[in-house]
């Protein structure tokens, strides 16, 4: 897989975003461990290539629907890390004014229609976004992210079926990270991968190495172009891995340390970094600078969030109805 149309600048931007996501989540993990977070969260550390590769193929006015494991999607679509962190910490300056938290961050300004606490819950909605695009006759595209575990939900089936018969501009991106909580994909799926199901909806089904951001990007670009051209939906399966537990309470008894280690050796950030260095597109100093930038941006986000006010309980009922 070569750097295709992307160009070195875009590739470097991808590395930057992946570093930002990683830094955000490592900080989130740390804050959680320090007891500074009330709630739960799902880290996508190890999976950064998927949101970044996919979102790099999108325009600012394109839409995404995200999942419970959505920090990466949100940042990759262009969210402000400060307002994300503020939301994570439940502050009034957060994207959802502290009402949503990690599992519900949305940034309508960048077309992110929200993370979702319900597995598969965003899939029917994404089909509706596709329908809306078609009816409004814009050439926008909608990407729906979901985990391979969601492919067992009825919502997956209904959503893809409607998108297929109506030829809607939606790209369904499956982040197959091998597990749904403790359930191994090989035990939950009678077929090899989720992409095998695309044929049931007469849509293209592509499987790609989800640890290779450029491969993800190339495949996503093709599916997005199809959708934008009015040729209908696609299913793109990105094979990846989450390094951390499912959520904070996970003892990870369903997998071995060796398995995790094997995948860590294929780290998408390290791989891209190495490649850019090898290609001469980046120097060690550039890389270090990017890393420092990401950490600094996250540190600044934490400062911003911590300095922000808590929501006022007197406003509890303000946002229930429009």
């Amino acid at each position, binding site marked *: 897989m070569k750097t295709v149309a992307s160009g070195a600048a875009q590739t470097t931007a991808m590395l930057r975003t992946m570093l930002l996501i990683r830094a955000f989540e490592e900080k989130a993990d740390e804050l959680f461990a320090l007891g500074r977070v009330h709630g739960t969260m799902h880290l996508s550390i190890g999976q950064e290539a998927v949101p970044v590769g996919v979102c790099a193929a999108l325009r600012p006015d394109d839409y995404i629907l995200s999942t419970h494991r959505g920090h990466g999607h949100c940042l990759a679509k262009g969210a402000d890390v400060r307002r994300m962190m503020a939301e994570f910490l439940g502050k009034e300056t957060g*994207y959802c004014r502290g009402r949503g938290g990690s599992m519900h961050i949305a940034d309508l300004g960048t077309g992110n229609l929200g993370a979702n606490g319900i597995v598969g819950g965003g899939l029917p909605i994404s089909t509706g976004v596709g329908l809306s695009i078609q009816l409004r006759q814009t050439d926008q595209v909608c990407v729906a992210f979901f985990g391979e575990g969601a492919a067992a939900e009825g919502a997956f089936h209904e959503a893809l*079926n*409607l998108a297929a018969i109506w030829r809607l501009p939606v790209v369904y991106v499956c982040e197959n990270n091998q597990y749904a909580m403790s359930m191994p994909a090989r035990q939950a799926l009678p077929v090899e991968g989720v992409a095998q199901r695309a044929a049931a909806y007469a849509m293209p089904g592509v499987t790609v190495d989800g640890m290779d951001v450029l491969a993800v990007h190339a495949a996503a670009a093709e599916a997005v172009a199809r959708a934008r051209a009015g040729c209908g939906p696609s299913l793109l399966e990105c094979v990846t891995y989450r390094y951390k537990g499912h959520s904070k309470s996970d003892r990870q008894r369903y997998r071995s340390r060796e398995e995790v280690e094997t995948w860590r050796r294929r780290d998408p950030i390290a791989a891209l970094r190495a490649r850019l260095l090898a290609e001469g597109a980046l120097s060690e100093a550039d890389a270090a600078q990017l890393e420092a930038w990401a950490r600094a941006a996250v540190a600044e986000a934490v400062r911003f969030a911590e300095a922000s006010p808590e929501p006022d309980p007197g406003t509890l009922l303000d946002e229930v109805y429009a």
Partner: protein
Amino acid sequence: MSRELSYAEAVREALRQALRGDDRVLLLGEDIGVYGGAFGVTDGLLEEFGPARVRDTPISEAAITGCAIGAALTGLRPVVEIQFMDFITLAMEQLVLQAAKVRFMFGGRAAVPMVVRTPAGSGTGAAAQHSESLEAWFAHVPGLKVVAPTTPADAKGLLLASIADDNPVIFVEHKLLYRTRGPVPEEPLPVPLGRADVKRAGTDVTVVATGVMVPRALQAAEQLAAEGVSVEVVDPRTLRPLDAETILASVRKTGRVVVAYEAVKTLGIGAEIAALIAESDALFHLQAPIVRLAGAECPIPYNRTLERAAVPQVEDIADGVRRVLAA
């Protein structure tokens, strides 16, 4: 200008006027196109507005609902038809965890202007899976509004208001009312949500009735008038938010209350109405315990006699009024 329309025609007219007046409105549902809807409500709309805006869908209640949410989030104003209210059970996650909550969860930065129309109720011999009255579930859900018109005029005006509303609205139509007729204004005049209507003024007993119980209560009131009993019939029309003030004012006046609804008695809408009274000062005006008349604690049976026995009839309401007067 007003003329007589059936309740079904009134709903159709509201849909037609909304579709004509606002490009963002679209209809989604099973068999709403050439078939005209299971109860004929959308008859003729496909011909006028075409298959893009009057969209027949496969049998996918959850995804249809999700489609409406996605469309509503991105600038459209979808109106979904769920063929029988029973089938809304397949869309609860999308309606309750998504549509109702999105705005709140996103800190007020999104709106979900959509309507779910659905026919409810028994009386057609369709048995336990085609006769549900589930409005109380939705009235329990912040973020949703619940509307249940009982006359053609209300059907039209409340539907127009629901489509114009920026929130998800569950619009409950009653199968047995579709053919009832009444005057309906020609103009697209919304009837505001959240306001009860005193369908008949009276002084001795308040009957708070919903759905098909409203015409039944009016019939009972007519019978009782002959017995010298003056019954006030209050139709909440919107079940969430409930217009507690109109109900309580009537109760303070009459001191005697019958609540009539078709859904299962336990935790049907009348439970909330009784509770509202019991937690207000109106309690001290009560001269008798509240009488709730409602669906029996069973699924709706097929056999016609059993089916009738399972929900309050005119004579049950009249008896209930007599009972609350005798207490």
